[in-house]
């Protein structure tokens, strides 16, 4: 029997003693793509941060357990968790620009995070990164690598963040609104690249997005969140075509549709 890639059991997360996410249960298999949609402020980022162990001092998982590849990430040692971050579970931030150190070049930071997990040459990292940049329509990779985050546009920073997470080929990739700052052409490329990664390496991807189009295009399963609760969970088609909850229905109705001809 294969171990699930991610398993959340009765997870409750509190900020300053105030619960924000309630009794959350979820399971993800290897190679699965999970779309997480929901109201803003419903706790999507919080769940991801909790799994990555990045809640900081304000937030705590007050109940429940989170298993990544069978390991309870809430209980393991700091360094073990660190080693998992990157190659085993990666994360694309909602706001990649500020998740980068503003006074070091992109190339430096990229190399640094690679080098922490395997012995690798700088040139090799640069090459890998440039290939990835190319794939998501970020030409002039050399300039990007030499740039500081503040010298790039919002979308460029976002893509840098995407590359930083994907370059490690993590088994489990969390993408927190990875494409909301990107124009649609790039968005399509990024999504294609993620799908390719799943195909090639069998990564599981949990993607948070407000774009129902993206969800229906790529996700196998969908989780809908509302005010800290998981209100609906199921196969993408089922949920989108046949929403059960009122909130889900509202959500799907509100999606603007492009009219072509």
């Amino acid at each position, binding site marked *: 029997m294969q171990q699930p890639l991610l398993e959340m059991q009765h997870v409750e997360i509190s900020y300053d003693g105030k619960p924000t996410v309630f009794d959350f249960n979820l399971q993800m298999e290897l190679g699965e793509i999970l779309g997480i949609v929901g109201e803003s*402020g419903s706790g999507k980022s919080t769940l991801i941060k909790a799994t990555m162990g990045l809640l900081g001092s304000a937030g705590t998982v007050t109940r429940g357990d989170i298993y990544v590849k069978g390991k309870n990430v809430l209980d393991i040692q700091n360094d073990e968790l660190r080693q998992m971050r990157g190659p085993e579970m990666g994360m694309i931030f909602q*706001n990649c*620009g*500020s998740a980068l150190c503003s006074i070091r070049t992109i190339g430096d930071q990229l190399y640094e995070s690679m080098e922490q997990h395997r012995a690798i040459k700088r040139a090799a990292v640069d090459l890998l990164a440039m290939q990835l940049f190319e794939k998501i329509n970020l030409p002039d990779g050399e300039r990007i690598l030499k*740039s500081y985050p503040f010298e790039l546009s919002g979308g460029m920073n976002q893509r840098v963040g995407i590359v930083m997470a994907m370059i490690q080929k993590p088994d489990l990739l969390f993408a927190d*609104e990875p494409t909301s700052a*990107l124009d649609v052409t790039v968005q399509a490329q990024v999504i294609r690249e993620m799908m390719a990664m799943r195909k090639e390496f069998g990564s599981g991807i949990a993607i948070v997005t407000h774009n129902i189009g993206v969800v229906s295009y790529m996700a196998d399963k969908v989780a809908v969140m509302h005010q800290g609760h998981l209100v609906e969970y199921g196969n993408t088609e089922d949920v989108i075509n046949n929403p059960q909850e009122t909130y889900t229905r509202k959500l799907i109705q*509100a999606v603007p549709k492009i*009219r072509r001809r």
Partner: protein
Amino acid sequence: MSAVLEVRNLKKAYQKGKTEIVAVDGISFEINKGECLGLVGESGCGKSTTAKLITRLTAADEGEIFLNGKEITHVNTKELRDVYKDIQMIFQMPLDSFNPRIRLGESVMESMINQGMKRRQAKARAQECLANCGLSSDFADRYPHQVSGGECQRASIARAIANKPSLLICDEATSALDVTIQSQILKLLGQFQQKMGMSCLLICHDLALVQEVCDRVMVMFNGRIVEEGTPDEIIMNPREEYTKRLIDSVL
């Protein structure tokens, strides 16, 4: 129809070492009263830079900007403050645009207090704006790092509309919002547009959204405006190669 904003031949280049990056390359356009102008284009094509140039947060290398017929390209800091009564902007990165040491409510109130409004009044108005954007009153007492990305963006919108500007520049203002909230906000902006004749420059990636709310749309590529027209014209009948690609990519 009178133009609220008129931009002529605006240019901006950034210096990076020895190479020069032309972010905005001689663009001209105007926005009429009560109009919503969409600005779409690939990431890094110069949209945010355009927004920053119009608001004079970055100095332009060349070109002129007229607000209500008055040239504002070279006005001094004092006059600029008057300009800001009319122009407001929603920043692309909401979190960074809030002072980390000031509560959200306070930040929203700032512009009103600057216009001479009483604190109590400003506070009430701030609450109202936040509520309009779907944030309950306790968010006013939170610090930027204590809210989610979407909540921060909503606070940023609340801040921008608090002063009822005649021109609002939205730099990807709704990209981090779920569609229910997004439609709520757009409805709100629509109201402003109708009631007060507010104009809007909507920088956006979501073509469907553009089609829904904009009166006119411009497509920007490599610092230039390559195509302009009503959304339906552009989407149903794109002329430029890039625009075609853009539309085809919509999922």
